[in-house]
């Protein structure tokens, strides 16, 4: 979750949703995102809303956090009811960060329990937590599984020490297979995250990382091109010339390599940066984001989307805690995208998926652009002829360009 909040309208202190949201929400799935804003160290590339103990200052502590965020879950129940939003059981839950596993497993279990008691989970609900390979143990993973977690996503990033060093990642790469094995023993689905295109990473380094990840035999892999965010340590190092800049061509080449290695190992892409061993192992929580599902995001800086309304919480854990303590909504701002903006969002999100976007959903000018996209080998011709826009590998690398064409600008 990026640290910079969008501009929007002010949010009301009671957090109530506009009347039209109730109608919009009916028929959509409901999810929960819980943000854990703590890390033991801040990585050089990271601009997420997370704090080390020293960065945190006073007013909010890791020890009290589970209790605080639980109170937002109670608040959510109350606000959704008062806004007339239909009662829905929770389809997916995702604990992200930060490093959720910096909190004791019992804390995470308690927060999940609060969601269960307030809303209930659908049968077979997906409950994921992100985890640092260094901050889990056989016991903690078993405890999470026992509490109802079904899935763990490890921040592996790379298997190459000099790459991890540039990223400031402190874990020992040899620790990852151990963590994956423990998760398996606990009966959890396993995903690993990789980052490619780090300054100094060769194509061979990247191949090493991809092959290592495949060797751990996960169910799901996310691979992200490194983004240099303003204000990060890495951005400053690049600006000062201490570290070489990233390069889009290098990124493209590494994407292609990964896509091919993943495919050869039996993984298929289902989103631009996500691959799984078949559709059953895709991350349902993330699919909800892309397919227009509803979710409540709890925790500082978390974003929510319910019934067409988007809002986001105040960023700093101390400010967040003050709001919760005072019994007022923690949201800092919100927006209600109009029809045009919704169309833009749907287009940019759905085209990222292997299930694609229906041609019939496009405006006439966008439909006209499809032939050109086929000619430029950006979309799959067979599926386009059958009425669905699905990106080719080249199209995935140029997805933003495709979106601009489909929206006729």
């Amino acid at each position, binding site marked *: *979750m990026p640290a910079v909040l*969008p501009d929007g309208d002010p949010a009301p202190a009671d957090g109530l949703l506009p009347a039209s949201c109730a109608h919009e929400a009916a028929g959509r799935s409901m999810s929960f995102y819980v943000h854990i804003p703590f890390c033991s160290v801040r990585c050089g590339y990271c601009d997420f809303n997370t704090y080390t103990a020293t960065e945190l200052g006073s007013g909010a502590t890791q020890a009290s956090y589970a209790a605080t965020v639980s109170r937002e879950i109670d608040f959510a129940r109350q606000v959704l009811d008062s806004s007339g939003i239909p009662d829905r059981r929770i389809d997916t839950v995702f604990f992200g960060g930060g490093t959720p596993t910096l909190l004791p497993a019992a804390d995470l279990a308690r927060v999940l329990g609060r969601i269960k008691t307030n809303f209930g989970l659908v049968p077979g609900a997906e409950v994921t937590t992100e985890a640092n390979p260094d901050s889990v143990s056989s016991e903690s993973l078993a405890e999470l599984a026992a509490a109802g977690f079904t899935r763990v996503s490890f921040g592996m990033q790379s298997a190459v020490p000099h790459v991890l060093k540039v990223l400031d990642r402190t874990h020992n790469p040899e620790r990852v297979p151990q963590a994956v094995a423990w998760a398996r023993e606990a009966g959890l689905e396993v995903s690993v995250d990789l980052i490619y295109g780090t300054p100094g990473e060769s194509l061979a380094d990247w191949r090493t990382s991809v092959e290592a990840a495949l060797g751990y035999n996960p169910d799901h892999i996310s691979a992200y091109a490194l983004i240099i965010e303003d204000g990060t340590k890495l951005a400053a190092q690049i600006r000062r010339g201490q570290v070489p800049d990233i390069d889009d061509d290098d990124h493209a080449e590494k994407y292609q390599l990964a896509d091919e290695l993943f495919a050869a190992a039996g993984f298929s892409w289902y989103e631009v940066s996500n691959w799984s061993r078949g559709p059953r192992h895709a991350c349902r929580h993330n699919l909800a984001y892309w397919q227009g599902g509803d979710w409540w995001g709890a925790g500082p800086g978390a974003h929510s*989307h319910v019934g067409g309304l*988007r809002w986001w919480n105040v960023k700093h854990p101390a400010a967040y805690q003050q709001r919760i303590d005072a019994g007022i909504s923690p949201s800092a701002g919100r927006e209600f995208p109009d029809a045009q903006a919704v169309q833009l969002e749907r287009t940019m999100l759905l085209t990222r998926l292997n299930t694609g976007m229906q041609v019939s959903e496009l405006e006439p000018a966008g439909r006209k652009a499809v032939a050109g996209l086929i000619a430029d080998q950006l979309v799959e011709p067979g599926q386009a002829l059958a009425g669905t826009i699905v990106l080719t590998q080249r199209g995935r*690398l140029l997805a933003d360009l495709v979106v601009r064409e489909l929206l006729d600008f």
Partner: protein
Amino acid sequence: MARTAPVPAATEPSLIRNFCIIAHIDHGKSTLADRMLQLTGVVAARDMKAQYLDRMDIERERGITIKSQAVRMPWEVDGVSYALNMIDTPGHVDFTYEVSRSLAACEGAILLVDAAQGIEAQTLANLYLAIESDLNIIPVLNKIDLPNAQPEKYAEELAGLIGCEPEEVLKVSGKTGEGVEALLDEVIRQLPAPTGQADAPARAMIFDSVYDTYRGVVTYVRVVDGNLRPRERVQMMSTGSTHELLEIGVSSPNPVPTKGLGVGEVGYLITGVKDVRQSKVGDTVTNSVKPATESLGGYEEPKPMVFSGLYPLDGTDYPALRDALDKLQLNDAALIYEPETSVALGFGFRVGFLGLLHLEITRQRLESEFNLDLISTAPNVVYEVMGEDKQMITVTNPSEFPDGKILEVHEPMVAATILAPSEFIGAVMELCQNRRGTLRGMDYLSEDRVEMRYHLPLAEIVFDFFDHLKSRTRGYASLDWKADGEQVADLVKVDILLQGDQVDAFSAITHRDKAYSYGTMMTGKLRELIPRQQFEVPIQAAIGSRIIARENIRAIRKDVLAKCYGGDISRKRKLLEKQKEGKKRMKMVGRVEVPQEAFIAALSTEEPKKK
């Protein structure tokens, strides 16, 4: 100051002196003129606006005079009151014809030279014009109050040029007023009175024509024979058109209506016409009832030498640009234009100018007075081209250059005069040789200043010649040129192609030996300026079908945000919305998206910035 000023329409020619001031930009002509207005009492000191005669803002901004004016001033010498007509002349080389008409309205000229800088090439050129027009010359050094003035040195230079004694060179300071009264006395003593036949049919020469929003065209004339009276009908001898004289008068310096103008007098006419092209500089005005049989001669149609495409940055400004050009043309008989369409730049105009300064001034006026943002294409000259069919065609735009085999191309030539300190002779010669120039002669004006005369293709000096000349001579060189026939040359059209599509705005006609360097320069510039596209874009320079230079813009391979989760959606949408705005400033060349900034940068002479 004169006690009793002679009355217009009733002044004996023997009491009239008509003169102009020949000077280089910033040698102090306007300051001297202001001082004269003050000393003769036509402008009170408290009303003095610095440089009263330069009316246009741009002129004041740039410190130069574009359009001339005429002022009548009384002055008394030895107890006799005279009428002095000071005719201001344009100071720039682009307006040589206007200068020649102003000179033709005078019997004498003050040659005004900065005592710290010496004579400049343009002044020298105008001095030649004045001597050719049989004008009496009064040499004057100005700014003698400056600490770095070298009056002795430059008095000798002037004396050498016009054939007088150094002691005869007057020394003044327009700023302090020193020597200006004596100069006015000398104007009366040294310059001849006008002569003409008072009883002959009226003949008056138009030496300036200015459009005024309230009064229509104000025409400045010098009466040679006969007289002009209010309410009578006059005839323009070049066109035969007749107009009623609604008002006739003199400037002092504000317009004062009079009972007419007689032999030798200078003043203005108002006929109600709305367009300066109906009252053309150089034309002869006569009485339509009793017309003269012969015009005064010397009239020429203005001839544009340099053409450039002017396009509004915002396509919706096209009608505004047309209106603005229409308005400027009311006051600028030399400005010609016709609509033109460019694949790359959209709708605009092909505009003809007298020279580069004329272009620059016009463009600046369009931008500052009419609030237009413009792109102008690289200026080019007019070529006569003979294709295989032996037909000569006139090419004012590279796009008109015929395809196929070319038998002959004629290009306009100029006679250029360059004055420079002698230490820069080598540098100037090298530059002129690079520009296909031929040395025609060289003279030392003084021990350390030299005059070099070159025959050069106009095309070689219209773009950046003067900048190069200045930089090679540390700013000391001055340049003057005039049209001087044409020559046959080995010229070709170089086209620039983006992914095989020709971009008309970048085509250029160059000498064959320079085609390659133009091609590599332009393709290189564009490679830096055009963003990468989803396909590879070859940029080629070609003569006909032969490719002479090539660059490649590699295809973009990645244009996607790696992560787009719940918290990224709003931000990402806003990013796309912003790109949508940016897209409006893109122009399509075939399938290639070219940002407007790339066109502007590629057409400018500056080095491109890294994209």
